[in-house]
């Protein structure tokens, strides 16, 4: 984000800060109904495995309070809800009302209720008291946030001391061949799939561009350290296509 003229990137385009929020919202309003189908098609179903590994690494236990930011259609919330049980709580938060509605309907239809709450919230200023959650996850959401540093600070604030932040996000591949194949797929095949399945090539082009503009593994780890997290580390998955960053609130 540029400080002087208050612009930020929206994919490869530089836009005023206020406009990014609206544009990202438009993208997700547009893809919400077919988000799950597209995720499966785009990743060949591998996004489920990335999420599974995230949950298994979370250390969630019965009775925990968990915040699933940018929770979208509720994949993580569904599994967390079963782990924390009736004595725990999972809050599914998303800035986008369409995504939140799709997620809520999907969870209720699959029998998940009782310990799940829904909240339309901006990750930069989370509407929760300090020291509320044992675990916070944000899966494939941080790259859409305008001020990522503010979001990470906000997450630190609402985590309990000793609580864990988990950021699952597309990242930078470490293999030149894989990078070439990945770029070709992202910029040539992905928008076409978006056009055919969701009738929206532009939104999926934005998704590909936003991935390239997202900070790499080391930069994001540095941002977490800067915000005040300790024991920060990351784990690459699928050759760095995706990375799971974790940090603990001291």
């Amino acid at each position, binding site marked *: 984000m540029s400080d002087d003229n208050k612009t930020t990137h929206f994919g490869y385009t530089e836009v005023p800060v206020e406009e990014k929020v609206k544009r990202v919202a438009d993208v997700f309003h547009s893809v919400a109904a077919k988000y799950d189908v597209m995720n499966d098609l785009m990743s060949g179903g591998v996004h489920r495995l990335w999420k599974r*590994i995230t949950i*298994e690494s979370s250390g969630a236990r019965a009775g925990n309070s968990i915040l699933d930011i940018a929770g979208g259609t509720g994949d993580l919330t569904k599994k967390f809800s*079963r782990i924390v049980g009736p004595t725990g709580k999972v809050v599914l938060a998303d800035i986008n009302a369409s995504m939140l509605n799709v997620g809520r309907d999907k969870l209720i239809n699959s*029998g998940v209720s009782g310990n799940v709450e829904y909240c339309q919230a901006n990750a930069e200023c989370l509407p929760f008291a300090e020291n509320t959650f044992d675990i916070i996850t944000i899966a494939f959401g941080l790259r859409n946030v305008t001020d990522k540093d503010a979001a990470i600070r906000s997450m630190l604030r609402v985590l309990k001391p000793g609580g864990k932040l988990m950021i699952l996000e597309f990242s930078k591949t470490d293999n030149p061949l894989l990078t070439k194949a990945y770029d070709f797929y992202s910029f040539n095949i992905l928008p076409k799939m978006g056009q055919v399945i969701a009738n929206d090539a532009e939104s999926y082009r934005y998704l590909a561009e936003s991935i390239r503009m997202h900070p790499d593994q080391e930069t994001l780890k540095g941002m977490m350290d800067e915000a005040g997290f300790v024991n920060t580390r990351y784990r690459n*998955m*699928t050759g760095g296509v995706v990375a799971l960053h974790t940090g603990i609130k001291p």
Partner: protein
Amino acid sequence: MQLLTAALVESVEAALNLLLKTRPMLGERLQNLSGKTLRIVLLPQNWTLLIRLHAEGIELSQDSDFDADVTLKGELGVLIKLITEPRSVLFGQGAKIDGDAALLQRIQKAMREPGLDWELWLSEQLGDLPTSALTQAFAPLATSLQEGRGSLERNLKSYLQEELEALPPRAEYELWTDQISKARIQAEQLERRIAKLCKAK
């Protein structure tokens, strides 16, 4: 590797939950155990799998730190026997059970589904050809594991029997050790005498 294991666990979980949907009685019995967790630890690799039962089905996880209600630990052959033979008892089979053993018996009882033909079920999910290939691929493994276990037990028994026959009786052994002790004492006395003679010269 982690991704491959996750894919395997995901596939097994999906197949099991699909099965539960087609077997309402089985699903209902497991529903009564909702919220319970069972950990399976495969020896000697220490490969661990957490099974979480919930109202909508079964969830599998590789979370190795979770404190499960009951843990079943054993070698593959033993666990296969426990799972595939409905009349098998839990204890004295070579499997170690930690935690709520009664829960394990309840799970085993709930999982018994009369008339459940696993091969037929698999063929419904995957098609005849892949199922046939899978069962053919795994049948020798299961058989060889069971045969291997049986043959190991037999070999051990016959080895012990032969060795027992070759061993001397206790009285013979004690007489032999006495003779050895006497011989050692005589050798020492002889050594001392030789040393004296050498000095006298």
